[in-house]
C-alpha cells in the first residue's frame, strides 16, 4: 500500500474542514457548502482537560473529542457537527459552546423515527434550518446544483466503498480499516480516486490473509482502536464485513435504495431520503428494519464464522444492541465475542481475547471438517 494513500496532507484539498462525531450528520450538505467533513477519531492523551467538564462515565470517543478541542488539537477545524443520536454526544453538544467557544457547533436534530411521514417533514425543515446556519457562517448561498454535485460525489464514493468491501476477505484487517478510517477523514472525491487506484493495483498483487483464515464480522460504534485490527491481523483472521455505525452500512450502502439523481430531482428531498434509508444505528428506530435480521443475513451471505462486538465502555445504545444481537447469534449457534474498548485499551488483554476467539473458530471449523 502506498503510504501517502492515507496521508491527509496530500489530499490536495486545502479547503476548510468540519469535524463530525456521529452518524446522521448530513455530510453532503457540508460538502456542498465547501467543507470537507472529517470524523474526529479518539486520540491518545491525558484526559485531564475534558475531565474538568465531563463526568467519568462518558465514552472515550466523546471525552477524547473534548480533550482534543481543549488542548488546541482541533483548531484547524472551521466547526464541528453533531447529529442527535446518543445522550453522550448530545451532552457534548450542549456544553460545547460554553467550553469551546472558538469552534462553532452545528447541531442537527436528526429524527429518531426513520419510518414516520411526520419525521420526513420535520427532517426536511431541519435540513433547511441547518442550511441557513451554514450559509450564515460562509456568507453565501448553497445552491441546488452545489448540493446535487455533492450528492453525486457521495453516491460515487459509496460504489467504490462497496467494491472495496467486496475485497475484504483478501485484505488484512488493518489495511481494510485504514481505508475505512481514511474514508471518514478526507474529501470523498479524493478518497474515491485512491480506492479506485488501489483496487486496480491489488488485482495484480495478491497477499492478504490465508485462504483458511477464520471469517469474522465486526459490530460496534466507531472504528476506534487500531489495536483491534492489528490483533485480528496477527491472529490470522479476516474481516468479511461489519456493522459499524460509520462502517459498511454508512459508507457502502446500496445506492439503488435511494432516489436516483438527475437535474430535475430535488436534492434536498434526495438528501433526506439518503439519511432515512440506511440501516438504523442503535440510536434510531425503524419498525421494519431489524439489526438482528441484518446481522444474520450478513453472516450468511459472507459465510462468516464468528462476530466480534467492539463496544466502547459506557456506550448505552451499543450495550443494549449487544444484548439483543448476541441473543440472536446464540440462538443461531454462531460464536461471538465482546470486546469493551476504553481510553487505555490494554493491548495485551485485547490480543488474548481475540487470539482465543480465533483459536476457538479454527478448532470449530476443524471439528466440522472432521465430521
Amino acid at each position, binding site marked *: 500500500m502506498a503510504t501517502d494513500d492515507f496521508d491527509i496532507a496530500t489530499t490536495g484539498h486545502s479547503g476548510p474542514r468540519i469535524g463530525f462525531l456521529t452518524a446522521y450528520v448530513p455530510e453532503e450538505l457540508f460538502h456542498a457548502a465547501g467543507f470537507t467533513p472529517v470524523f474526529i477519531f479518539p486520540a491518545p492523551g491525558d484526559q485531564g482537560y475534558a475531565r*474538568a*467538564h*465531563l*463526568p*467519568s*462515565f*462518558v465514552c472515550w470517543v466523546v471525552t477524547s473529542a473534548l480533550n482534543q478541542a481543549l488542548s488546541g488539537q482541533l483548531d484547524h477545524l472551521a466547526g464541528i457537527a453533531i447529529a*442527535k*443520536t*446518543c*445522550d*453522550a454526544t*448530545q*451532552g*457534548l453538544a*450542549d*456544553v460545547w459552546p*460554553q*467550553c469551546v467557544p472558538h469552534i462553532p457547533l452545528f*447541531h442537527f*436534530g436528526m*429524527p*429518531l*423515527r426513520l419510518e*414516520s411521514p*411526520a*419525521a420526513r*417533514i*420535520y427532517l426536511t*425543515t*431541519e435540513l433547511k*434550518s441547518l442550511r441557513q446556519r451554514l450559509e450564515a457562517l460562509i456568507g453565501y448561498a448553497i445552491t441546488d446544483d452545489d448540493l446535487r454535485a455533492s450528492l453525486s460525489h457521495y453516491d460515487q464514493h459509496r460504489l467504490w466503498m462497496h467494491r472495496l468491501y467486496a475485497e475484504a476477505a483478501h485484505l488484512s484487517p488493518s489495511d481494510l480499516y485504514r481505508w475505512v478510517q481514511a474514508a471518514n477523514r478526507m474529501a470523498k472525491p479524493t478518497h474515491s480516486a485512491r480506492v479506485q487506484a488501489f483496487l486496480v493495483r491489488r488485482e495484480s498483487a495478491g497477499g492478504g490473509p490465508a485462504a483458511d483464515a477464520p471469517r469474522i464480522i465486526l459490530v460496534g460504534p466507531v472504528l476506534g482502536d487500531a489495536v483491534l485490527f492489528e490483533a485480528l491481523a496477527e491472529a490470522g483472521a479476516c474481516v468479511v464485513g461489519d456493522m459499524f455505525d460509520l462502517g459498511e452500512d454508512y459508507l457502502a450502502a446500496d445506492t439503488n435504495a435511494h432516489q436516483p439523481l438527475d437535474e430535475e430531482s430535488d436534492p434536498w428531498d434526495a438528501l433526506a431520503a439518503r439519511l432515512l434509508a440506511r440501516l438504523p444505528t*442503535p*440510536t434510531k*428506530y425503524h*419498525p421494519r428494519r431489524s439489526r438482528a435480521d441484518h446481522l444474520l443475513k450478513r453472516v450468511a451471505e459472507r459465510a462468516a464464522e464468528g462476530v466480534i462486538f467492539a*463496544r466502547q*465502555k*459506557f456506550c*448505552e*445504545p451499543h*450495550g*443494549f*444492541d*449487544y*444484548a*439483543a444481537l*448476541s*441473543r440472536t447469534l446464540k440462538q443461531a449457534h454462531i460464536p461471538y465475542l465482546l470486546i*469493551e474498548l476504553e481510553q487505555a485499551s490494554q493491548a495485551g488483554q485485547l490480543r488474548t481475547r481475540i487470539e482465543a476467539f480465533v483459536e476457538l473458530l479454527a478448532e470449530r471449523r476443524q471439528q466440522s471438517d472432521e465430521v
Partner: protein
Amino acid sequence: MGRYYLQRKVMARLKPLAYVTSGAPVEILEAMGVLTLYPENYGALCGARGASVPLCEVAEAAGYPADLCSYARSHIGAVLEPTQAPLNGMPRPDLLVCCSNICGTVLKWYETLADHYDVPLFILDTPFQRTTPPETHIVDYVADQMHEFVAWLETHTGRSLHPDRLRAVLTYSQEAIGLWQEILEMGQRHPSPINAPDLFIAMAPIVALRGTRKAVDCYRRLKAELEERVTQGIGAVPHERHRLLWDNIAIWYRLYRFFRPFMDAGACFVADTYTHAWTMSLNADDPFVGMARAYTGVFINIGLPDRLAIIADLARRFAVDGVVMHANRSCKPFSITQSEVRNWLHYEQELELPVMILEADMCDVRLYNEGAIQERVAAFLEML
C-alpha cells in the same frame, strides 16, 4: 406503592395496560381508559427496597453490560426473573409507550420489552429543544405524533378518544401540577416545611397518577398539612441553619441514611431539580399543541442555558446557601452538564455558591462508596 401495583394487576384484567416512560403524554392514555404503569417507577421501588442489585445481576448474566442505566437493568432483571423481584414483578403489558424526551436509553429498553413481550410499541420522538421558545417545526412534529398516537391507541385498544374526556383529564393534570408546584414553592419559607427526601416519596402521584382525581386529592391533603406546618413555624429540619439545593434523581437505596448527617447539621434541601421537573404547563385549550410544548420542554430536554436559568432561579428564590449534585452514573442527560452548572454557580458573581458533586448511582449500591461519600459530606458541611 405496593397497593398501587396490586390494584393495577387486578384492573389489568378488565382494561388494557400500557407501560409508559415518565415523560410520556399520559393524559391521552388516561382519557382513553388505558391503565398505565411506569417501569422507571418500578426501578426506583427496587432501589428503595434494596432489591436492585440481584436483579441487575440477572440482567448482566443475560448479556446487559453493567454500565447501562440501573432502572433498565433492575426492570429487565425483574422481567427475566419475576420470582426474585418485588411484588413478583409487574403485570404483563398489552402496549408499550416510549417518549424520548428523557433520554435515549428508553428507546433501547422499550425495544427490549417489545421483543420480550411481543406487544405493540409506540415511539414518540421529541427532538432536543435547542432554543426556548422551541422552533415551530419541532412543535409541529411532536403535535403530529400526538395525533398519530391517538390513532394508534384506537387501533390497538378498540377505544376512542373523546375530546371532552381529554379536556377533563388535562384539567386534573393541570390542577395536580398546580398543587404540586405550590407544595414545592413552600420551600421558600424560613424554615422550609419540606425537605427533598420527603418529596422524593411524595412525588409518586404526580409521576404515576397524573390526570386522575386521586392525584389532585392527595396533593390537596399534603398542601393543607404543609400549610399547617408553615402556620406553626415547623420546619422539616429542626433548627434549620443551612438551605441546600439537590440536583438529579434520588439515591433510592439511601433515601434517609444519606440525608441524616445533613439533618443533624441543620441543613434542609429546600429545592431540587428532580421534583421540579414535573411543573410543566399543559395548555388545556389547545390540547395537542399544549402537550407537545409541555413534553418537549421538560428539564432534561432543553439546552444548557435554559437549564442554568431554572437552577439559578431556584437558587435565588429559595435563598439557597449550597448545592449538592448527584452525579448519577445511570443518567447521562441529568449528569453530563453538571460540571458546567457547578462552575457557573460557583463563579457566578451574584451566587458564588459552594457546590459538591458526588458520584454514585440511583439504584446500584455497588457503585456507592460509603466511606468516601461520608468524608466528603462531612467536609462540605464544615465548609458551609
